[in-house]
């Protein structure tokens, strides 16, 4: 069985070490927050200037001065701090975040990331903080479906969409498999309702098994 979005988020949450400083980007990756175990000590950063962000705000807790990077009202946990945008991005770009989780249009076997522009001629380009997050965090996780709606793979030998960052992705969490990517190429770590052979047949990117890659790439 392939994973639901929530199950994918849970897989990502599982691989975030306790006490990490983490940025969950916008959209789907923000689901990861719901699956961090209680007492994990994970501190969430939001690019718009806050550490120790809490869950989405509901009811009376909604405050238009307190939103996440997706402009969704959120809450503040004890021990939070606020800072301005240059300080926030200095934190990202200076390599202080342990993990960043992003969505993607495409990831290449070498870790190249394309998640800001489809390259379509009539698309209005919008990058936000994606390029800063892509190069800033110590480890970058991507969370996406492995195949686009038209069935084309999103884990590719080389990105055809405009790049967000070069060789910046470490892990790819998808609905049917988890991969390690980087200078050594793509390594299959886990499958969900599919097999190495099925995936190797559908993907153009050269794929190795974790056992072949050596070491224990699954460890954090």
């Amino acid at each position, binding site marked *: 069985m392939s994973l639901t979005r929530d199950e994918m988020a849970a897989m990502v949450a599982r691989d975030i070490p306790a006490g990490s400083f983490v940025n969950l980007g916008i959209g789907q990756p923000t689901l990861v927050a719901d699956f961090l175990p209680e007492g994990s000590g994970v501190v969430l950063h939001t690019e718009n200037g806050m550490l120790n962000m809490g869950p989405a705000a509901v009811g009376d807790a909604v405050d238009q001065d*307190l939103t996440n990077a997706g402009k969704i009202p959120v809450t503040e946990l004890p021990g939070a701090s606020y800072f301005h945008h240059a300080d*926030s991005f200095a934190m990202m770009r200076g390599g202080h975040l342990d993990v960043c989780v992003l969505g993607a249009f495409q990831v290449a076997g070498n870790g190249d990331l394309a998640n800001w522009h489809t390259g379509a001629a009539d698309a209005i380009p919008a990058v936000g903080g994606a390029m*800063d997050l892509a190069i800033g965090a110590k480890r970058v996780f991507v969370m996406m479906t492995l195949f686009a709606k038209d069935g084309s793979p999103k884990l590719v030998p080389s990105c055809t969409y405009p790049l967000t960052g070069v060789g910046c992705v470490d892990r790819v969490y998808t609905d049917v498999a988890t991969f390690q990517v980087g200078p050594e190429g793509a390594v299959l770590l886990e499958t969900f309702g599919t097999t190495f052979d099925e995936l190797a047949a559908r993907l153009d990117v050269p794929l190795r098994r974790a056992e072949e890659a050596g070491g224990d790439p699954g460890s954090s």
Partner: protein
Amino acid sequence: MTLICESAAEAVAEVEDGSTVLIGGFGMAGMPVALIDALIDQGATDLTVVSNNAGNGDTGLAALLAQGRVRKMVCSFPRQADSYVFDGLYRAGRVELEVVPQGNLAERMRAAGAGIGAFFCPTGVGTPLAEGKETREIDGRTYVLEHPIRGDVALVGAHVADRMGNLVYRKTARNFGPVMATAATTTIVQVARVVETGELDPEAVVTPSIYVDRVVAV
């Protein structure tokens, strides 16, 4: 010295045609809506606007855009669910767009305020947004050379000012305000209230008075 203004109209009275205007806010948080509305009434046109987004709904920056007063937008993320005003103008070729990674937007304004001539930056290397820009390898990592973004005017939304112009902000509405205040020749601030000098905790002032030219409580 900081001028405490009676109205937003007085605060923005001297903005000139052709100015580069830095506008604070991240979405609506920290957006200086009263100052933008006053700028719409004031009439300055042919503006270059530097702001993270390109307007939401029909108010604030979106309204300024709708009036055709913006020649060019410099921003990181124009595309939002409710950015239909900008989207329409852009597709009609009636506004220029320079997309800048959000961190570069902040750091380039910080550089303008801090007297930095240019800086080598890790963001955007190998992407279309670095095309044509100088790159350099330093200690084994590749960087792109980025230059300051200066404003003639900054419009900032803060929370409280004292009569000298010291500012504090509120939660994530702080965002670009403190950086823009340093990067503009004239910084104009809207606040929820103005308190007597001495009422703000000197340890908690975020924008010191030196960066603030005009303040209006709205």
